[in-house]
């Protein structure tokens, strides 16, 4: 029943991009950076009572929505580059082709994951907005925790996407 909204492949594909290129094995450092660091902020902020206000929630929802839309556009850009790569008649070594395809696939997965996190973050921000007076403090704090976690994760993944897009487009311009 939930097949059409099953996004687990997006998560799996993104996680598989966190491998060391040399050894093709997962790097503990990457997992700490992307999944443990947001945890740190998600615990610290509510602990010190730095909670999300209505104003801040509005701004964050607007920003995340704009980012999500832009990231959707980026997906199309990557698709365009993939199509161009297939039609290119340039003599490239097998290794170069393999690297480019792998790189494009990874960027695609990263962008999709970023969009997914943005959507979830928006959902939880809306939940916080409607829950403060109606729910218990524990639920309110939990939503804050999750929202902070998702936003920091979104930010870190966005940096990763930015770096990769920069490298990709720079190389395209260089040709």
């Amino acid at each position: 029943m939930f097949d059409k909204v099953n996004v687990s492949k997006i998560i799996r594909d993104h996680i598989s991009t966190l491998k060391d290129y040399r050894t093709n094995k997962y790097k503990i450092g990457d997992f700490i950076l992307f999944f443990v660091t947001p945890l740190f902020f998600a615990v610290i902020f509510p602990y010190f009572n730095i909670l999300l206000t209505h104003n801040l929630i509005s701004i964050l929802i607007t920003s995340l929505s704009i980012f999500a839309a832009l990231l959707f556009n980026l997906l199309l850009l990557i698709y365009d580059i993939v199509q161009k790569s297939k039609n290119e008649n340039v003599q490239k070594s097998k290794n170069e082709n393999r690297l480019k395809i792998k790189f494009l696939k990874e960027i695609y997965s990263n962008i999709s994951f970023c969009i997914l996190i943005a959507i979830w973050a928006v959902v939880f921000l809306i939940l916080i907005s409607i829950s403060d007076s109606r729910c218990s403090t524990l639920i309110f704090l939990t939503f804050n925790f999750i929202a902070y976690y998702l936003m920091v994760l979104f930010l870190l993944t966005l940096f990763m996407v930015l770096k990769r897009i920069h490298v990709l487009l720079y190389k395209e311009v260089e040709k």
Partner: protein
Amino acid sequence: MARYSLAPYTIRIKDKKSDKYVHIDNISGGEDFLYVMNNYLSNRKNSVGHQQSQKKILRIRRFTLQNRIFSGIIETGEYGYETELFDANSEKTTYKRHINEAEMLPFYLLMYLPQNADEGILILQRFKQYGIRTNFERDINEYVKTRFSSLELQINPLVTSQLINEYLRHGRVLKLRFIRFSFPSDIANAYDTQDHKEEEGYTELVISAKRRGRIPIIGRILEVINGKRQLNELIEIKDFKYEKVKIEIDINGNKRTIDLSDINKIRPYIDITQNIKLGDNGHPLFNSIDAISRELLLDLINQIARDNNVR
């Protein structure tokens, strides 16, 4: 004098979807590759294989099948340039070959496709420096793809411990050199730079073989050469991940370096020039080359069995 040799290969079929090698007698839904090969060879007997981009022609002159062993003659030729045929006796040009005419040379082939195995043996004749492996592999794959789009036939040089022993019997391993490339850990950086520089591994291993002795690493070298072991698993060196291994061998005072990451440089050809009988057309008599090849096949089967037991 023209030299004739035999080149042994392994023949395997890979399923690209599962990335695994399939059994020869069950390549897809119970189908035996033996019959696929039989159909291919029959097909090629009646119509030529024409690789237009390479300007090459391939056809089967004859073949037989007995006990899962094919033997026959393949003819291949190349066109695309003119040549003059010159009579050595009359010292006159007797014919001008046109640009779209190919000179067809015959090559012997022997193929063994066992049951309950994912690997067969192929022996192809070589004539001077000419071989047919690449053309043959390409042509078969075009045929296989039309029937099984996810399957790919692979023909790789067959190197047995006997060949390695040949090197080591007359020489000794002086040095194992481990080389590490400075690849970055992030694929983005790798894509950005797309080059690498070699830096020599700082660890040197010297292994010396005594006469008639055994070198402990030979089994692993063989596994790497035959694609059954990863190169970086040849020897585990703590804190040093290498990507290339070069073996320096001293053969009768001459040093030779073999790059294990480039096995195509190892040429396991068996020279049979002195053992075969030539016909009036200057090419080996079929029965003569067939007998020698079948002996070699038996030898290879035994060698492979021995190598597998050693591991």
